[in-house]
């Protein structure tokens, strides 16, 4: 299996020793046999890239290599430990033929966005209810006062509306304003 890795440190014989040790450790953990030694892990074709092939031999049965599937399974089980030993990650330490099973992102039980949505929604609804209720209260107060004023208005349907210098023929009379100044003013003049 080819082993690729971009390194932050120089690759030398000590690192190779560490690698062999990690492989032996992985094999021991996987198969629970305490027989795998560092000498069982053989590296070959080491290139500058740092990539190489390696095999694990079984010392109990002479010169036979442990099947690839077993080594694969062992590495898969201990991937984390191997990665951290070399200060690398799944992306930077690549074992060919071992596809990584990607860990799914942590999903909380309720999606986060619903929580935020709920908070904002309740704030907005509270605001609307508050404004509507206070508006209804103000309306009731105004209704009491306006019954007094209705008498004034009924007298004031004045047709002379000179609205901003526009003569009345061009205006539809209903669209004009009731000029309360004229209406109320009649009250203030003393009757003749």
């Amino acid at each position, binding site marked *: 299996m080819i082993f690729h890795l971009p390194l932050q440190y120089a690759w030398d014989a000590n690192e190779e020793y560490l690698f062999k040790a990690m492989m032996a450790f992985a094999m021991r953990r996987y198969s629970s046999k305490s027989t795998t030694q560092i000498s069982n892990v053989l590296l070959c074709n080491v290139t*500058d*890239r740092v*990539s190489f092939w390696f095999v694990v031999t079984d010392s109990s049965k002479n010169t036979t290599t442990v099947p690839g599937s077993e080594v694969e399974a062992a590495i898969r089980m201990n991937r984390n430990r191997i990665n951290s030993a070399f200060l690398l990650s799944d992306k930077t330490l690549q074992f060919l033929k071992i596809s990584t099973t990607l860990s799914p992102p942590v999903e909380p039980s309720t999606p986060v966005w619903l929580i935020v949505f709920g908070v904002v929604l309740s704030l907005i609804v509270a605001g609307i209810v508050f404004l509507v209720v206070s508006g209804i209260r103000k309306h009731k107060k105004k209704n009491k006062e306006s019954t007094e004023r209705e008498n004034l208005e009924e007298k004031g349907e004045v047709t002379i509306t000179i609205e901003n210098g526009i003569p009345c023929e*061009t205006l539809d009379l209903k*669209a004009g304003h009731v000029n*309360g100044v004229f209406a109320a003013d009649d009250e203030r003049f003393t009757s003749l």
Partner: protein
Amino acid sequence: RQSPGSYSPKPGWRGGGAGLAEHLWAGSSNRTAAHLQDMEKARPLWDNPLQFVFACISYAVGLGNVWRFPYLCQMYGGGGFLIPYVIMLVVEGMPLLYLELAVGQRMRKGSIGAWKIISPYLCGVGVASVVVSFFLSMYYNVINAWAFWYLFHSFQDPLPWATCPLNSNRTGYEEECEKTSSTQYFWYRQTLNISPSLETSGNVQWEQALCLTLAWLVVYLCILRGTASTGKVVYVTASLPYCVLIIYLIRGLTLHGAVNGLIYMFTPKLEQLSNPKTWISAATQIFFSLGLGFGSLIAFASYNDPSNNCERHAIIVSLINSTTSIFASIVTFSIYGFKATFNYESCINKVILLLMNTFDLEEGSLTADNLSEMKDYLMAAHPQEYAQLLPQLKNCSLEAELDTAVQGTGLAFIVYSEAIKNMEVSQLYSVLYFAMLLMLGIGSMLGNIAAILTPLTDSKAITSRFSKEVISGFVCFINCIIGLIFTMEAGNYWFDIFNDYAATLSLLLIVLVETIAVCYIYGLRRFEKDLHTMIGRKLNWYWKTMWAFASPLLIISLFIFYLTDYILTGTLQYQAWDSTQGQLVTRDYPSYALAVIGLLVASSTMCIPLGALLTFIRKRLKRERVSTVA
């Protein structure tokens, strides 16, 4: 500056419904003010002129400044685009803005009432404005819903659009996400859940429907009390986007690679000035960016104190709008530069990794600088293996990355979110950015809804039966229900239809009729006199020439250009998302979509002649009735 007979309103006086009739009562200001207070249903006013200015800025400065202007700048000559832009601002933007504000402040009514006063035959113009505003508010709030969606999703670590989701057996990423990027996948699949074409409508997406409902509730809360509530809200919606833009400017300029974007975009390509499309795009951008013709500006100005200096405000608002566009494009270009540099460097790194793996080279032997030489060397040294590798080796180019010009929702939701996910503390920047989009969108929505509600609340027939809160609630409710169409799987295609066709031609016609009406039907001298009475200053010759000649000519030429463009292009097409390829493909609109487009344009433009015709018929009938009686 005080004209004879005018008075300054006493503090606490909030009425103002008698127009300028009070100038007859010179010297009796105390009595007049007291009587006017007795009047029922006095027109509500802004608390101070600052609220009015903020409302106009909040309305005019919208999403178009952020996602349309940078695109135009990039397409039509970079820094050189500023020349036609400023010219159009002076010739078209400021005069038309002043016109609308002056009309609203003078007539003190919404669009329908104001144009009725100018001439009874023009009530159709007001109705057309309301119809266009109605169409706009239907689809515009969906953008706010999307902004809410992204905002709520920004509270996760990592951001959900940063990585692709895994496929079912967890061996790799989702297929669709592999073909495109994770941000595009998040937008097209997880936000819109877009269908492959307009015909396949699909279901309503409940998540988007919830966000849309929330968006409408927010709008309702802001307009519930009319100017009292809107006036407070616009303080926030006008100022918050600037705070965020400044933060982003600082962050954007310090990003790695931002300078590349700025240099590339702003180097003027002056040869684009000879392209007529440049000038037309500048004129169109100024026109639509200010939001003319919707009736919102008339509505806002109608709540003004009559002696308000709307001339100064018009200049301020148009200048602020344009400077915001330029400011936003600096931020956008630095973000572009960062994104393009990031992608370019990732591409280079991928190539380096591939070459190093294949040829087992030592770590650090291949860098970005010596890449091309090493490639030639490897091609010579190991020709066969290199030839095998060739299809996978992409040619990374920084210009190609910078050249991807994006506008609209693509820029706002895809490009920006892609840039944000690569920043440190991405959640904070994401929250800030989508809050800014939300403020811009809500500010514009307030203007649109005001354009619809002001004529409704002006009409005595409606206000006598229903209170203001009920009318606003009804309008919001209807819009929300219709807006659910845009939350369906094919909703984004309908959104594009509305975005491209609902307002463009109609607005040009509306503003053209408005300008001609004020200048020639109402009379420029009469209007000048009214303004002099209102503001106390004589009208400058600049405004008069622009209103009478320059702006109408410009709008007519724009109108002719758009008509010929629509006629010449033949079949209309749209961009549909193909999930199998992971990119957009062009399709033709089906016939019923074309019918809807025709209906959209016709329903607003036909209001103008229909209104004139109806008034004519009504007058005829009245005259006949009067003559028979006499």
